[in-house]
């Protein structure tokens, strides 16, 4: 029988109040590393990612406690695979007490509510730390837990403008752009998970717990040093730079054969430039004074783009990338998710993994964003647990973790405290 390394955070229990996007991405990566993440949910106000148009109607026969309308959303499955679910009515005194009992046997509490919400629910850090002194509580919110704009509403579409990123997205030809992917949320999730592990490291050395206040507005600014410095040192407001670069030329996504198909090409230095000229069959470019050295190529990037685009226009994007990578030039097709489904890379590296969901069956869900191999030599445990159905872990929490009787579990279920 194959044994697996359970992950470095094995044994760490997270009571997770996070919902929608940023918070669930943060706690998903903790689960990736072996933590047991118990998502605290409510049927009265379900996670928004459980709701919406059903993409399919399952044909399997479902037990009566499963509400099909809450179990069919692919995004919910993608964000919550490998977690457990406790569904509890926190407006009841017994529900709140049950959650505090769970906190007593846990290590971490996470939320991404509006600032002050946990305290209003009677679950602020002072309460949590009174029942579990070394608890690490992390609150992720738009503007942070204090400050005059702590009530700012955070969505991907408001974080980018707030954080200074909105005015940097797009290219000089378009007046403005936004990012379809949820940059602000995912970035906040990665940053916040790092902060949480700093606190855990500190706790393992000192025994001290922690409250961590993370503002998504501030995490959005984290990668923008260059923009802040440009403004302060030159007086010029940094603008939308599209795909232009000072380090690479050519450097762009070029249209290829096919409908809306493109290939990325990035060339750095004279050696790669020579390799590109050879690959495209235009050795004359090497003696063209407009492209004589890196500085000249950057200055004449627009003229260069026309020449490269002319070469790519009738060719296949994958073929172009193959040809260029063989000679050491960075290149790849601009991938839709459909393109990615056809790439062995994402399966071999377990970026896409299969998960068998009890309601909808086998689905592809995102795996780990890294490969983690312990030096013990034992392979890491695969991601196999699907996103939980609502309340999937109610019995486990009440009976196994809290040690209550079957009668108590039945009573809590009948009375709607567990629901």
């Amino acid at each position, binding site marked *: 029988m194959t044994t697996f390394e359970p992950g470095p955070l094995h044994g760490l229990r997270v009571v997770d109040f996070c919902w929608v996007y940023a918070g669930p991405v943060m706690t998903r990566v903790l689960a990736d*590393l072996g933590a047991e993440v118990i998502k605290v949910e409510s049927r009265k106000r379900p996670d928004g990612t459980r709701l919406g148009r059903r993409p399919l109607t399952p044909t399997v026969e479902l037990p009566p406690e499963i509400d099909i309308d809450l179990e069919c959303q692919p995004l919910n499955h993608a964000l919550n695979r490998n977690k457990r679910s406790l569904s509890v009515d926190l407006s009841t005194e017994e529900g709140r007490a049950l959650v505090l009992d769970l906190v007593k046997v846990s290590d971490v509490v996470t939320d991404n509510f509006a600032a002050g919400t946990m305290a209003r629910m009677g679950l602020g850090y002072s309460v949590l730390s009174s029942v579990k002194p070394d608890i690490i509580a992390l609150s992720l919110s738009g503007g942070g837990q204090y400050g005059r704009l702590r009530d700012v509403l955070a969505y991907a579409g408001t974080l980018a403008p707030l954080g200074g990123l909105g005015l940097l997205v797009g290219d000089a030809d378009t007046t403005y752009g936004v990012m379809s992917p949820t940059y602000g949320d995912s970035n906040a999730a990665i940053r916040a998970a790092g902060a949480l592990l700093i606190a855990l490291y500190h706790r393992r050395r000192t025994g001290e717990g922690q409250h961590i206040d993370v503002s998504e507005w501030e995490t959005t600014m984290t990668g923008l040093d260059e923009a802040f410095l440009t*403004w302060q040192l030159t007086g010029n407001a940094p603008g939308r730079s599209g795909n232009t670069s000072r380090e690479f030329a050519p450097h762009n996504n070029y249209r290829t054969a096919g409908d809306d198909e493109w290939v990325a090409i990035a060339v750095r230095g004279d050696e790669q430039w020579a390799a590109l000229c050879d690959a495209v069959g235009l050795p004359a470019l090497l003696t063209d004074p407009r492209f004589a050295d890196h500085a000249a190529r950057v200055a004449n990037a627009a003229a260069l783009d026309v020449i490269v685009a002319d070469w790519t226009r009738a060719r296949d994007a994958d073929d172009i990338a193959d040809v260029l990578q063989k000679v050491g030039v960075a290149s790849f097709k601009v991938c839709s998710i459909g393109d*990615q489904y056809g790439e062995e890379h994402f399966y071999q590296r377990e970026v896409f993994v299969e998960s068998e969901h009890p309601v909808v069956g086998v689905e592809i869900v995102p795996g780990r964003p890294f490969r983690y191999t312990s030096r013990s030599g034992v392979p890491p445990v695969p991601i196999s647990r699907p996103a939980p159905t609502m309340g999937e872990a109610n019995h486990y929490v009440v009976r196994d973790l809290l040690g209550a009787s079957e009668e108590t579990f039945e009573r809590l279920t009948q009375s709607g405290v567990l629901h």
Partner: protein
Amino acid sequence: MTGPLADLTVVQLAGDRSAEHCGRLFADYGATVISVEQPAVPAPRPSEVDDAVRVATDRGKRGIAIDLTTPTGRGVLVDVVGQADVFVHSLRPAELAELGLGTALAGLGGLVTVSVTGFGAVGPYRNHAWSDLVCCAAGNISFGIGARDGAPLKLPLSLAGCEAGATGFLAAMAALCGTPGEDGVRPGADIDVAITDVLACMFSTGVTAFPYRGVAGRRNGNHGIALYPDVFLPCKDGFVGLVCNQLAMWLRFLELIGSPTWTDEPRYRDRRRMTEEYPEEVDAHLVPWLAERTREEIFALCRERHIPVAPAYTVGELLANQHLLDRAAFTELRLAGRSGVRVPAPPFVFSTLLPSRWVSAPRTGEHTFDVLTGVAGMSTDQVAGLYASGAVA
């Protein structure tokens, strides 16, 4: 050295911003981060901004210069890494083998290695060349950025690489938090981060939905993927972002702008079609109201009504924003001939932990002697010999 990570030593051998950023995050909370560089090679003088970006990225790190083209130099690197807790690098497998580091690193049992590359250390593209642009393409993020008929765009600046560096940091921290084995020694780990994977896995919303809903998230100019409005629009003095994920928010916004009659038409009630099929047409109805008002006026009106709107701030405005100043969101750098230059501080408020307020970065090789004697435990004579041979500088 103070800070929660003060007992950690990290060696960074970075080829780009991603691994440098990973090292930065360790230094932010007090780790000793040793940045390995090649002895000074003649290079064009960087611009003042480039130089300042280097200070922002490398502040608080130790600088050591090793000539990795020599066997002696490579031996020195292994000696230094042998005393470290973490080794962060951006070498592809072929480059690692070329330096003879693969087997040497494998022998260091408790070490945590973090490799941050474009396509990872395993897989069909493990030796591919990469850049942020190419990873944004492979990682599906460019597919969603740009004008509808224009070229797909990368994430601005070095954001893509920084995300991978930050992902490497958190995985390494998890390894360092790991429970020691029966021998009392914490097992090391090898963490292989691909920039492409971080984008594909953490930033993509449609992976699981694809078989049901097909390709989604295609770039749509100033519109996002959510129901209308998920939009970035001009106003009197700049731009605002407007998002209403709940219908009630959109209805409150329409009430705010005077419940115009066009909203009675069925065409303006299907928020999905409004985003996907004719967003510009709907924008045109909102722009006149926005054009008469400033960002702050719109922000204030919408905050009162719980409508998610945000002004598009310039970085200059952010540096003066009172909310951010109250939260100590910036930290000052020490730059030659400049004072008061600030960059974003680590974006966390811990109840008892503080970040290290580093202000300057090392010159190439500034700490070579200190690191070789202090960290690697070499004698003064040994180090003098290495300087004389040219293996270090």
